[in-house]
């Protein structure tokens, strides 16, 4: 592995690779500590699968790739007052968020309505190979800031909506205002 002049380092490595012994009770201590934890809720595998499906993938993009995505990015927010998801008393209306991102592997809708949690509102492709991603969300009257998170790394404001001017996170975001009925 090492050149002759690095034989010294080679000797170091051989020494460091020797087995190290630790307290024989370490395994038992770990398992005791785990036993004191609250029981793992049933359906763990299902939740793990759901987490795997919805987790934001981190894909490193070159500035050019990010630019390419941004260039084809067109988004519209369609109000759909005809589809009430909750009783009228809540005043909630369903909104369809639509974005075009042909190169994206995942897109999440994040905003004030889901605590900017990328796992809570993953967007779905409109078709198997489609470039269009959608998410439908019930919103009660109010003003919401939102953005799209592409591939878990690129924050994009909605070019079809007013930009938010009071974003404290330093990332682009847009505003949708839901009026009362």
């Amino acid at each position, binding site marked *: *592995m090492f050149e002759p002049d*690095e034989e*010294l*380092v080679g000797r*170091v*490595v051989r*020494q*460091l*690779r020797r*087995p*190290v*012994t*630790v*307290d024989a009770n*370490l*395994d038992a*201590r*770990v*398992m005791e*500590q*785990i*036993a004191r*934890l609250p*029981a*793992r809720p*049933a359906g*763990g*595998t299902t*939740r*793990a699968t759901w*987490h*795997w499906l919805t*987790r934001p993938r981190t894909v490193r993009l070159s500035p050019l790739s990010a630019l390419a995505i941004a260039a084809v990015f067109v988004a519209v927010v369609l109000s759909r007052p005809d589809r009430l998801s909750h009783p009228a008393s809540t005043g909630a209306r369903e909104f369809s968020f639509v974005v075009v991102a042909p190169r994206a592997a995942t897109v999440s809708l994040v905003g004030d309505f889901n605590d900017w949690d990328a796992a809570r509102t993953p967007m779905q492709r409109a078709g198997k190979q489609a470039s269009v991603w959608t998410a439908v969300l019930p919103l009660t009257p109010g003003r919401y800031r939102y953005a799209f998170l592409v591939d878990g790394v690129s924050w994009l404001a909605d070019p079809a909506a007013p930009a938010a001017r009071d974003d404290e996170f330093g990332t682009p975001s847009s505003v949708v205002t839901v009026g009362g009925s």
Partner: protein
Amino acid sequence: MGIHSVGTSDVDVVRRVLGGDTAAYATLVARYRDRLARYAVHMLGNREDAEEALQDAFVRAYRSLERCDDPARFGAWLYGILVNRCRTTGARAARRGRVFVRDEAALNGVAHASVAEQTEGEDVVRWALARLTPEYREAFLLKHVEDLEYEEMARVTGAGVSALKMRVKRAREQLQMILREAERV
């Protein structure tokens, strides 16, 4: 070589644990204990701190098992947790050291005394390793002792491949220099 599992696959064991079979987790602890212990002991230079970091890593991994996106790579995921625990424990130990040894002259005196006393094999190696910065020591151990590929190291440490290659190179150069100096003492 990377990180591999043997016997009953990690995937099976992780599934059992997630399904409620807590005892199955002991299989994973036994499987990875020795290798992770070696890294922690060399990284922290202190058996007590290493055991604390190791135990903490195993427990944290259990609590977050749902977040292990690819159970087939449980070992690499666990390595990442341990690397972080070692960073935290090492930083705390360093602060502790500074609290107790405030006199720079006294600190140097202690260091020189250690060199004189540690004339044989493993002690000298441990002493030399401890002279590296934590970043260099971490990269050197993961590459040359734990035999991880650079891509694997990047996932485990969060650092870029080129930065890691640079750290490993510098660590090797510094180790050679430190050990040559020690041989002359």
